[in-house]
């Protein structure tokens, strides 16, 4: 029976967080049930103030096999990191 219910991805925004973060996944027959299940499975310990649920099938994911083509070109472009600017001492926390 479980396998007949589609899979959903759950995103929770925590008390102090600004962005929703992926919390996990669950099965539910529709969006309303997914929302309730997300509340019960992922916010039992006061984790969140907001929930998003998205059908897993609607998530477009990069393929592991494409990893080199997608990400390796960025490896040797150190100049894209802002590490070559002298920072004034007065500026903290950067």
């Amino acid at each position, binding site marked *: *029976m*479980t396998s007949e*219910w589609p899979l959903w991805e759950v995103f929770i925004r925590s008390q102090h967080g600004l962005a929703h973060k992926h919390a996990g996944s*669950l*099965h*539910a*027959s529709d969006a*309303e*049930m997914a929302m*309730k*299940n997300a509340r*019960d*499975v992922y916010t*039992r310990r006061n984790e969140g103030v907001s929930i998003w649920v998205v059908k897993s099938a609607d998530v477009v994911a990069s393929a592991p096999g494409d990893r080199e083509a997608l990400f390796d070109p960025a490896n040797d472009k150190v100049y894209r990191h802002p590490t070559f600017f002298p920072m004034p001492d007065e500026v903290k926390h950067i």
Partner: protein
Amino acid sequence: MNDNARFEFLLRMGDNALVLAQRLSEWVGKGPVLEEDIALTNVGLDLIGQARMWLSYAGEVEGAGRDEDALAFRRDQHGFRNLLLVEQPNGDYAETTARQFLFDRWHLLALGAMTRSRDERVAAIAAKAGKEVAYHVERSSDWVIRLGDGTDESHARMQRAIDGLWMYAGEGFLPDATDDAMAEAGIGPDLAALRAPWREGVAAVLAEATLALPADDFAQRGGRQGRHTEHLGHLLCEMQFLQRAYPDARW
């Protein structure tokens, strides 16, 4: 108003929550799907928390040195004051859902009325519990609709569950001398007045679920006076075993 009536009133609220929570705990690890297993356990845990608040206060009002644990684990079935509805066995998921639905809808109305209680402690417990029970109502109503308006089999099972439990659904609207004393003192709700809004809410959900509202309103009673169905003794056997076998055992 004597404190014995208030003690009885608090036991009734506490025992409803305690006995139903114990029933729900029987589903732990056996729910139809993982998500539902956790969700139903959450409801049970909410009810345990409520039972603790009611029974602690009951113990203080009684003034005989019994705390929440003594009241929960050292009373025999005739000392329990819960509605007959909540002690009924889990059955299949439709029966568990029907029991929860019929009780939740009574529970929310009763707690709502108690938030205006002249007893501040009662009002505070009712306000806290009411937030939890509002979610319980939403969940159980949702499941009645899903199962009722589902497949042929889920519809048939849901209808059978509602029909089978219906004779236990009306007990919460039949006040006795204790309820009259509590209502008069402004502490407890006017139970008879809860029936109309309860019926209206239940009828609306059953209609959406394509289920028939049972016509016969005969109601079994006695649980709130300590006369129970044969099921409560077995439930207490399991719930109280540890404290009976090893009195004062602690974790």
